[in-house]
């Protein structure tokens, strides 16, 4: 197990450098002079311009600039936004908000996916199953911003169950509507995977053995079927993490939640290159780490996977 973790961490190295280099290179191509933008209307003297350029290593070749940037990242400094705030500061303010939203959304997604998927599988071909299939297809094809607007219009504006926008007041209890929207848009894939997985598991020998031992259904289904059916759903939630990140960005924008995604969105509107790089880099790092974590989770769920290669 330890050697597997080390091997996976080593595989992360080229991915990390490649992804950050790619994004850095893209923003390096961005037109416009960031220093000139820093000074605003008053043109600086050539000496001052050169000094500031040297301070930000802008007089150096591309790879040297990238080296300084990565060096900063490893020292825990993610860079500075255009307004002069450190990205770390912005992250420590916005990341908890997005974290709350994401955890609630994943919770709603999993609860719905597991319950609906299992019941669908147990009643294969019946009305409930067909209904769930249609609903999941609709949510699968509906872009998240459509789900968000429909939720905002019907649940918040028409029925008044929730506040249509969130703003500064964003504790756990305030985030229900955006979390439901995000969870619903993620739930379709998981639910269909769960259904297929439960159907597979129901045909396994150990399930037949469990029944023939005389175990009741309420014991066989949760203990013998559910636990073994969860693996594809968990795997999918890792590969689907990108969808979650993008979904969170859109949801935060629509409901005006001051999270990481909304900050990224505001930065793109203002064309703040360095801020965009920092945030997308943070997203990529989180994405890669989540995938690693899920890989390691398999071992706990399925004792057959032991990583001895």
């Amino acid at each position, binding site marked *: 197990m330890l050697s597997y973790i080390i091997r996976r961490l080593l595989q992360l190295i080229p991915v990390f450098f490649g992804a950050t280099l790619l994004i850095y290179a893209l923003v390096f191509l961005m037109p416009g002079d960031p220093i000139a933008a820093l000074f605003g209307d008053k043109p600086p003297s050539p000496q001052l311009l050169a000094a500031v350029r040297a301070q930000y290593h802008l007089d150096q070749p591309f790879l040297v600039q990238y080296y300084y940037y990565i060096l900063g990242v490893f020292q825990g400094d993610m860079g500075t936004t255009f307004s002069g705030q450190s990205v770390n500061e912005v992250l420590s303010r916005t990341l908890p908000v997005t974290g709350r939203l994401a955890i609630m959304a994943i919770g709603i997604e999993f609860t719905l996916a597991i319950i609906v998927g299992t019941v669908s599988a147990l009643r294969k071909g019946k009305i409930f199953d067909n209904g769930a299939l249609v609903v999941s297809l609709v949510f699968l094809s*509906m872009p998240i911003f459509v789900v968000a607007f*429909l939720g905002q219009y019907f649940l918040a504006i028409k029925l008044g169950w929730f506040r249509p926008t969130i703003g500064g007041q964003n504790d756990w209890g305030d985030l229900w509507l955006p979390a439901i929207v995000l969870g619903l848009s993620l739930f379709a894939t998981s639910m269909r995977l769960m259904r297929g997985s439960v159907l597979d598991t129901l045909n396994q020998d150990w399930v037949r053995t469990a029944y023939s031992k005389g175990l009741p259904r309420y014991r066989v289904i949760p203990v013998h079927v559910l636990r073994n059916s969860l693996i594809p759903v968990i795997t999918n939630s890792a590969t689907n993490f990108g969808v979650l990140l993008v979904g969170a960005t859109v949801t935060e924008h629509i409901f005006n939640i001051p999270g990481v995604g909304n900050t990224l969105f505001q930065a793109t509107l203002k*064309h703040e290159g360095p801020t965009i*790089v920092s945030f997308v880099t943070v997203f*990529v790092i989180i994405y890669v780490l989540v995938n690693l974590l899920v890989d390691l989770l398999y071992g706990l769920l399925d004792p057959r996977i032991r990583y001895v290669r």
Partner: protein
Amino acid sequence: MSDEKSAHYVAPVTEAAPVTDAVVVSGKPASLWRDGWRDLRRRPMFWISLAVVALVLLMAAWPTLFTQTPPNNGCELSNSNGGPAAGHPLGYTFQGCDIYARLVWGSRTSLSVGLLATLISSGIGLIMGALAGYYGGWVDAVLSRIGDIFFSIPYILAAVVVMTVFSQFRNVLTLALAIGGFAWASTARVVRAEILRVRQAEYVTASRALGRSRFGTLVAHVVPNAIAPLLVLATLSLAASIVAEATLTFLGVGLGGDTMSWGNDISQAQSSLRVAPMALIYPSIALTVTVLAFIMLGELIRDALDPRARASR
């Protein structure tokens, strides 16, 4: 002994045709595609999705068949939030634009971005996956690591960065490049796995033994036999690209505000959601139904081409 005749009985030889096991070769031999087609054409959902796709394609190719309102000219502020009228069945937006006409004209943008992005991502994915799977060794190692890098960046986020960088070239082609250029990694993985399976086949060895070059064999025999999953993925990624276009345009980094696309329609209707919800709901329905048709089509083709899934139904 020579003139002595043997007097035993010889049964008369009758002419009888030799009996062999008969193999009736009527019709063409069964193949993956033929079996799949036979399965598909019996399924009503296939024809429904195909009809929706055909309708949207028709709309995109010849919008004037569906509406007489010319593009961008259907806006009269006096019609702001107006209800349905003759020739304008879905009413007007807050800006007084004909919703139905904008839907018809917008289908062209959504579909061309979707098709172009899918062509780009499938093309790159096919080349990278085929080379990695077929040649193996260091080629595989390098190409698969590059794929890992692209896989680790959610492609809509990457497209946000690309479109911010090239903000003065916001048109259909750059948007398709931004989406397709970052969405190919999962296609490459699937193609690579399929090529790994196919390259073990006897006909590949035979082709090499008959003197065809390695690359020639890859193009002539390996890729055609590994193309089925790519077709399915392409249909699904067409759906995903249409959603990506709408999402990026909605976020304000996709197509400019003067381009007619479903993403723009939804984005512009957002500010008047409270007073004119229908201006948002109609383009949302158009987008959802189109994406749904492509997803259904992709899944039905996938099931039809997979003998195991066919058997379990």
